[in-house]
């Protein structure tokens, strides 16, 4: 199987380039794209650089652009892809080396929305009660693995990575706004009313299209807008 992989090492390369590898995926028992990357690194080119950890789609390390679409290497079946398999780093973020991108801008946007539960009421001795209905509002939100597939597929994030929170950050913003145990929803909403943080979303749904966990940031963003309207009007 032929792979065309984006290569760039700042110490030796003036500019990025694409490198081709022909790998016998059967002989190396590769099922997923990550298996193939590992086989290439182990047997053909130990300098090939990528991130990986859990290899089962829950840690979010190996988000990359495979055949034009952002996905996790470890849950993308080779059999589902057209040859040659073109692997590039996540779009829009500065490249550290090969498929490793500098995620700091992405994390900064995540931190901006105060991604932690705030509750100013006295802490009870036992758990804070939450009905299954209230809890179910968090489904589809808390499962995010911060792989950045969504935000780096979003043109609004490409053009304004420093101002637009991006789908991943906004999904988490809504995760806390929607949590019946969080007392700071109003504050959270009012901190997002500027023209960039939320309103750069043009509803193009690239985020929904690529999310490896099947989550829907657009829906969360629309909920945020709706709640702002309720609060503001």
């Amino acid at each position, binding site marked *: 199987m032929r792979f065309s992989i984006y290569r760039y090492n700042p110490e030796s390369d003036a500019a990025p380039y694409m490198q081709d590898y022909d790998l016998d995926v059967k002989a190396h028992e590769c099922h997923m794209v990550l298996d193939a990357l590992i086989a290439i*690194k182990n047997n053909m080119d*130990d300098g090939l650089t990528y991130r990986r950890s859990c290899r089962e789609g829950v840690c*979010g*390390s190996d988000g990359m652009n495979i055949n034009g679409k952002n996905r996790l290497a470890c849950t993308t079946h080779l059999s589902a892809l057209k040859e040659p398999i073109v692997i590039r780093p996540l779009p829009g973020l500065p490249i550290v080396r090969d498929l490793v991108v500098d995620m700091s801008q992405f994390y900064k946007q995540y931190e901006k929305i*105060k*991604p*932690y*539960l705030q509750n100013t009421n006295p802490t009870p001795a036992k758990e804070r009660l939450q009905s299954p209905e209230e809890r179910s509002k968090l489904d589809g939100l808390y499962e995010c693995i*911060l792989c950045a597939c969504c935000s780096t597929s979003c043109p609004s994030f490409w053009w304004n990575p420093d101002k637009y929170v991006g789908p991943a950050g906004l999904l988490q913003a809504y995760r806390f706004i929607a949590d019946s145990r969080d007392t700071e929803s109003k504050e959270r909403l009012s901190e997002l009313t500027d023209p960039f943080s939320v309103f750069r979303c043009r509803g193009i749904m690239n985020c929904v299209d690529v999310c490896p966990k099947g989550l829907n940031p657009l829906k969360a963003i629309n909920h945020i807008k709706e709640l702002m309207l309720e609060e503001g009007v």
Partner: protein
Amino acid sequence: MAVATQTFDAIIIGGGGAGLRASYEMAQSGLNVAVISKVFPTRSHTVSAQGGINAALGNTDGRDDWRWHMYDTVKGSDFLGDQDAIEYMCREAPESVYELEHMGLPFSRLDDGKIYQRAFGGQTLDFGGELAHRTCCAEDRTGHAMLHTLYQKNIEAKTNFYNEWFAIDLVKTSTGIAGVVAMNIETGEVVYLKARATILATGGAGRIFQATTNAHINTGDGFGMVLRAGYPLQDMEFWQFHPTGIAGAGVLITEGSRGEGGYLINKDGERYMERYAPHMKDLASRDVVARSTILEIREGRGCGPKGEYVLLKLDHLGEEVINKRLPGIRDLSITFAGVDPLKDPIPVVPTCHYLMGGIPTNIDGQVLTIDKDGKDQVIEGLYAAGECACVSVHGANRLGANSLLDLIVFGRAAGKHFQQSVKQGLGFREATVEEIEKAMGRLNRWNNNEGGESVETIRAELQKIMQNDFGVFRTAEFMKQGFDKLEKLQERLQHASIKDKSSCFNTCRIEALELDNLMATAIATAYLANERTESRGAHARVDYPDRDDKNWLKHTLYFEDGRIGFRAINMKPKEVKPIELVARHY
């Protein structure tokens, strides 16, 4: 060569559940702490934990008692666990879980708004009575929910993060540990991080086996560091094989799937656990289920064209239970086994999952060694918590959902103890230039070695040896062979080399440094597995099939120079009567 130095009150090595719980405890109280993690913290292996966390809240059953939880844990440990530590863990469990809830962990809920609790292996009411529902969960993504919650709270508490930094070695002085030498993976820069205390929270080392549920990053980095510093590891022969890893892929299918009512069948469609464990059946403890499954496969009742696996049946639970309680494993099963559990059973096989042993610590998380007379001795400035530590609460076999509990309870305990110590004047230790450079020794070796074998060659061989000779069933003959092969491999490792010597995000170098740690872990395992001539918990010897309480009711210790030592098991809980030794039946 002068190395740049940065100073903190405490350095936590590892950004998983234990590390983040410890750092949160300290950062919240205003201490200047730094977490160094070789991956961004939410990529740590805690994220993969599925089933849940045990605490005797009694939410589902209406009654529960931490003493029953303690009984189950001691029995599950095959009596190798320290009863004072297990007592502490089970007693602290409810409060620790409530704390997590207050931090925002999105637990699944009961209709009355309390935390939902599911059944799990080896959990009973009334000291071995009916099945208990003790496992709190967030669907089947509890570890993910926990890790993210803890990371989020650390952002709030302004913990310093050194993400994608790799700890090379501890800096050891004559009076204890003075910090750690670590490398920024992105730039290759090496820094001495100096601290009053260093907390190891480096997790497990499942990657010494070929087939493991563990992440690529679980390479026993803490074990290597401790051994190289001259301190011992404890109970390293006890590796848990999880009964239900997806055949071929190694991906975990939570015990919660059996807790919700799923069960294992062989090729005849027989629910074989009824034969091996008539009372608890599929919810017997993991060592029992794993061994029974291997026996079924060996006796020709495995499924599939080669009879290599058994099947986990879930379809009878119905769409609602699966989608509501087990949505994550449904995804995993579809992706990695090509099977939708709503319709078909999942092919599973026992897969290396967890190390019960590790770095010996006391209840406060302080790392222990033994002096010449075999007496416990606290190592100043060094703590350990989580899977890398051996407190020991899991003994010879860990119960499902006690692992997340271990992380939380002892991460917190280490944090609390450290705060106390700082109040009582715990200071910094001054390391000499030689001591700091010593910690860089192996980095220099990898930078200088040329023309040797590759990291992959040695790692693959190591994993093969461990898989074949130190698996679920062990015999002296195979282990001896394996041990000899390992010793030779260890020698070859000294000459191995990497081709890529660049400084920028050199994962090749990181894998090499990790290989040192894998090797150290494997050797420790091999030594102690050979040593223990009995079967207990996860350590099952064909040539010594019975538990031998007379000779082996003790912890084993291994030092890097090959010395072996022993520690007594604590049978003296503080508040309750000791749990008496009995034969284990489920």
